[in-house]
Every structure is written in C-alpha cells, then in structure tokens.
C-alpha cells in the first residue's frame, strides 16, 4: 500500500510538531509538510496535493473552513480532516458545506486520529463522537418536525 501523504496545518508550533511526531510513528503515513496559517496551507496544499490535510479549524489569516472552501473552489480534492475544539451546529454545518471530509478533536487518542486519517483517505467520512452527537440530535429533531401528525391524512 502506498503511504498516505499528509500535510499538518496547525498554528501552534509545539502542537504541530507533536502531531507530526505521533503520525511519523505510523509506517503507513508520510508527513510531507507543515503549515502554520491559512494562507500557507492554501499555497502548500495547492502545490503539493497531499492525500489528507489535517487542519486546525482556528488558524490565523484564514480559518480551516475558509481554507477548505478555497481548496474546493480550485477543484482540489485533498481530503480535509478538521480539528475542532468548539463544536456547535453552525460550525459543523459550515464545515460540511465547505467540503470537509471529517472532524476530529484535540481530545482524541492517537489511535482515533490514525483511524480518522485512514477513513477519510479511503473516501469515508469521520465524525468524532462529540460531533456525531450534535449532528444526530439535530437530525432527529428535523425528522420529527417533518413527520408531524398534521402531515398525515
């Protein structure tokens, strides 16, 4: 199996290096570059076309959702795995519409992170459980609304 080429985008140097070190322990993952702000991510991803971009949602100049939107506008299909801290419906929805392929939290374990990277790289979607919870709650509420008894004859 070819290695998964990944670019890590995270503002805080120490965090970024820690994540890269963790991923370099995995023989199926190849960390090809790092970036520290949105503009840099956009430039590097456009040039290097990694398989996966592991991207913090909060970054200087351009946030992760905006970067994803810009990448999709340029028809770049690198999978985006977004690192989120503050999860709410609006952020999740904006990210999904921008074209992210998954959500992971900084509270995730190393094994969760690796699972998430494999999942998005093969075209699946990864929903970190706290994000999945918000989405499912909202989904079920919407379903209930559309199935109100007054819609029945």
């Amino acid at each position, binding site marked *: 199996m070819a290695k998964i080429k990944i670019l890590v985008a995270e503002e805080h140097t120490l965090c970024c290096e820690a994540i890269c070190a963790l991923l370099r322990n995995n023989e199926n993952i190849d960390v090809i570059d790092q970036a520290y702000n949105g503009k840099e991510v956009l430039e590097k991803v456009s040039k290097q076309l990694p398989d996966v971009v592991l991207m913090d949602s909060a970054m200087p100049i351009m946030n992760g959702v905006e970067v994803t939107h810009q990448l999709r506008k340029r028809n770049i299909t690198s999978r985006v795995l977004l690192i989120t801290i503050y999860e709410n419906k609006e952020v999740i*929805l904006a990210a*999904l*519409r921008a074209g992210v392929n*998954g959500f992971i939290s900084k509270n995730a*374990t190393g*094994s*969760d992170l690796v*699972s*998430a990277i494999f*999942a*998005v790289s093969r075209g*699946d*979607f*990864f*929903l970190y*459980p*706290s994000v*999945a*919870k918000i*989405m*499912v709650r*909202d*989904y*079920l509420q*919407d*379903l209930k*609304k*559309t199935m109100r008894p007054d819609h029945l004859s």
Partner: protein
Amino acid sequence: MGKIKIFLADDHLILREGIRSLLQKLPDIEVVGEATDGETAVNEVSRIIPDVVLMDITMPKLNGLEATRQIKEKHPQVKVLILTMHETGQYLSEMLQAGASGYVVKTTTSADLISAIRAVYHGDVYLYPSIARMLVEDYLSQVKTGEEKTSYEGLTGREREILAYIAEDKKNKEIADTLGISVRTVQAHRTNLMDKLGAHDRTELVKYAIRKGIINL
C-alpha cells in the same frame, strides 16, 4: 470509577466469544451478560441493567431494531451500540430513531470498537466512517429542505405569485400586465425573491420552484 458493563446480543456464538475475550483484557470494561435473540436480550437487559448493549440487527424472535426500541423505552439510560454486518447503513435512520447511540460494522478493528464503546458510554454518538457519510448526506439535504421551507414561508403573497409566473417563463412585462402593476415593481419583487431565496439567476429560481412543487414539468 466502575467498569463499563457490557451486554452482548448476537446470535453467533463465535462472535460473542471473540468479543468477550477481546474486551476482557481491558481494565475499564466488563461483559456482564449475553443473549442469542432479541426477546431474551430485552428481558436480560431489564434484569441486569448494563451500561452498553452491543446489539446485532439480524436476530431470531425479535430483531435488533425492535429490541433497541423496547430497551430504550424501558431503560433510557442504557446505551445501545449497533454491531452489524450491514455496511450499507440501510437501517441507520431507523436505528437512530429507535434510540441507538452508535453504529459499528463487523469489519471494524478492535481499537475502533473500543473507542465506540467508550464514546457511547460517555453519552456521545459513534458512527462508523462508511456509515457516517450517509448521515452527512441525509443531514445536509434535510437541513436544505428545512431552510427552503423557512425561506418560502418568508415570502409575501405577491412574491409567491410572481415566482410562479417567472417559473412559467413569463416576461416582466407580461407579469406586470397580468397583475396590473408596473414593470419596475415586478423587477423589485424579482430582486427581493432572489435575495430571500439566495438565487443568482432565473434558472435557480425555476429550479427552486420545481423543487417546491410550485410548477410541474
């Protein structure tokens, strides 16, 4: 902290034994009971009150969907994690409505299964990545329908009327004549419609009208 108490409901012995031996190695998880059919699962879960039930969908007597519904009705605090061979997620929506907290397929790794158990135990939701995609697609289309519904409700009666005419390919002049208003007023309504519906041109307005059933093809 007490251990997470797991109940296994699956009609295949080898799977139950395998999962049991897998989970037994973990310091924070213990298997407290098993059932080979849905009916027994419901009864045993009522007696034992585990934290998490690993539930197969296809089981004799009572299927996993119905068993989940009954368990969640009687014991809402018990979390149900669906463990199935169905990778298409065809029952996903039903399972979530029945109260399941997660959906894992049998081709998953043990590390992912353990992550899933811990997530649902903590009140979160775990969806296996191939299944998650389906929820995301469903979710987005549902949100869109909801927003369109709201945006349609935000239109005035006159705007709805004009939208219908636009969809029928009537020109501004014709609409103005039919309604006895000026072309300039029609143009203003048209601009408001585009704004309210987030449409950029006539084609998008027409597409919207078709989706809403305002005109038929």
